[in-house]
């Protein structure tokens, strides 16, 4: 793969990822609940997508080009802390609001709610539905001859939902080359290894069999993420980027540990975690 970013640029992007990771952990610690594991596994991709690849407008409807924006759906809505951190970084809202995450009266609901917060295209949280919603958006944009892309971010455990495969058929049947899906392949779900709970097997081959183009990357390698997204934009078919990631990435004691799927760090754990993100 050709390297797109220089080392200095990569350092800058990784610096942002670190800041976002700190915010994710502080939000979840402050809320005393949330999903650190899956938020940390997807944050590098969300960072590159929102800051380098996607056409979007934090001022929303005030921008005359708003209807031409790319769409993003966080189908694995439990990684909301990651999305909020990125949205805030991009200027959708001020960073101090992050500390309202999961609190009573907050716009930052436990799972994303589109009627409370600008920048959320559709409410998610119940797994398996995002890819079909993405198909509908892709169809709607095509009807209006809008050349934007629709990005759908799924978890790997989420692929156990039948709705995902209904959508996979829908996308290839309708030749939705404006649809780009991600699978956050961190190999863990609440009850343990995805292969133990219900083996997903070869995701690449499965999507290929459904008529998709597929790309496989290291979901924490900035250049690989960027290259894959840029390549996906040129796809003649719906395309899935299978991102091999590490659940809890960046925090040694959270990495690859399913116990951190939906648990908040206590004061001491937060302190230790933040030291690793200096």
């Amino acid at each position, binding site marked *: 793969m050709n390297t797109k970013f220089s080392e200095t640029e990569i350092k800058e992007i990784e610096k942002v990822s670190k800041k976002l990771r700190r915010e994710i952990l502080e939000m979840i610690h402050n809320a005393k609940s949330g999903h650190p594991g899956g938020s940390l596994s997807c944050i590098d991709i969300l960072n590159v997508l929102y800051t380098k690849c996607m056409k979007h407008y934090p001022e929303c409807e005030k921008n005359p080009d708003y209807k031409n924006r790319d769409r993003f759906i966080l189908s694995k809505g439990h990684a909301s802390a990651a999305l909020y951190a990125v949205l805030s970084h991009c200027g959708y809202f001020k960073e101090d609001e992050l500390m309202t995450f999961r609190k009573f009266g907050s716009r930052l609901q436990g799972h994303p*709610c589109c009627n409370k917060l600008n920048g959320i295209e559709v*409410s998610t949280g119940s797994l398996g539905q995002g890819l*079909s919603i993405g198909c509908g958006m892709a*169809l*709607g944009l095509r009807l209006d001859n809008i050349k934007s892309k629709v990005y759908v971010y799924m978890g790997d455990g989420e692929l156990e939902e039948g709705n995902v495969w209904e959508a996979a058929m829908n996308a290839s049947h309708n030749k939705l080359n404006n649809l780009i899906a991600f699978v956050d392949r961190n190999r863990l779900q609440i009850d343990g290894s995805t292969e133990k709970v219900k083996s997903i097997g070869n995701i690449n081959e499965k999507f290929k069999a459904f008529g998709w183009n597929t790309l496989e990357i290291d979901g924490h390698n900035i250049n690989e993420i960027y290259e894959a997204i840029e390549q996906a934009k040129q796809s003649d078919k719906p395309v899935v980027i299978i991102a091999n990631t590490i659940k809890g990435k960046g925090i040694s004691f959270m990495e690859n540990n399913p116990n951190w799927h939906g648990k908040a760090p206590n004061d001491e754990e937060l302190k230790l975690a933040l030291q690793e993100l200096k």
Partner: protein
Amino acid sequence: MTREYKSVRSAYGNTLKELGRENKNIVVLDADLSCSTQTQIFAKEFPDRFFNAGIAEQDLMTTAAGLACTGKIPFVSTFAIFASGRAWEQIRNTICYSNLNVKIAATHGGITVGEDGASHQALEDISLMRSIPNMTVIVPADEKETIQAVKYAASVYGPVYIRIARTNLPDIFDSSYKFNINKAVIMQKGTDISLISNGETLVETMDCAKILSEKGINAEIINVPVVKPIDSDTIISSAKKTNRVFTIENHSVIGGLGSAVCEVLSENYPVKITRIGINDQFGQSGTAKELMNYYGLSAEKLTEKIMGQLKNDTTAKCIQKI
């Protein structure tokens, strides 16, 4: 009296076509039942705006949600059992929680699905749809009311569920009828009992009232096409007048129109209510007519049931007439 029976499903398909001509944002989705639901009428004229999800109702509903996110007005059709059952959580969590502009026009509700039997007879759809916030629920009783309900749904923002009958229905309303989302319709004024119905059972209720009047019982008939938001005022006024209410519906007695009326009256003006519908059981194969009769929803069976109830009811105002 001979009645002219009309296909409300064809009326639905033709109305979609008409709406499609007026508004390019109208799109239609189906799940391999477009010949039954009659969305094929729209599909023939607007193939680019018709999407067949195949036999995949969860994808059907969530794709419609995505289309709505881009400003389209999706009408989604399949049988009521699959629309409301198979995809309930998609409707709840994606369409209604996001408050998306999706219109679900489900055909084949109730026992009158007939020969296909219990697996295809949705007896719970109104209950399932009524309990979701942001959802409007409409059960039209004839062709004119169906057409107006569909046009109403297209004209307002937000999720709407419309139950389109499988059976052909006789004209009940004349050309002056105006569907009103906020108003139930007093079909006949009366003083002894209130008969509250909608959809396919409305005509049976009207015929039942005729038989009752021959027996000296003066029934008030109220049509409640909009089960949610329900017109409480009309129902309360009628209960105040008659003091005895019967609800009649082609649906389980749990959670549908009968329950909605009970909720209104128990909180505002408690009177004795008898819910007539399918009594917490599955249906079976048979003609629509046979099943309506067997499950007590034909005019004759309704009359028997109501007379039987009134005989033993010392609180009913008309007890002396029986």
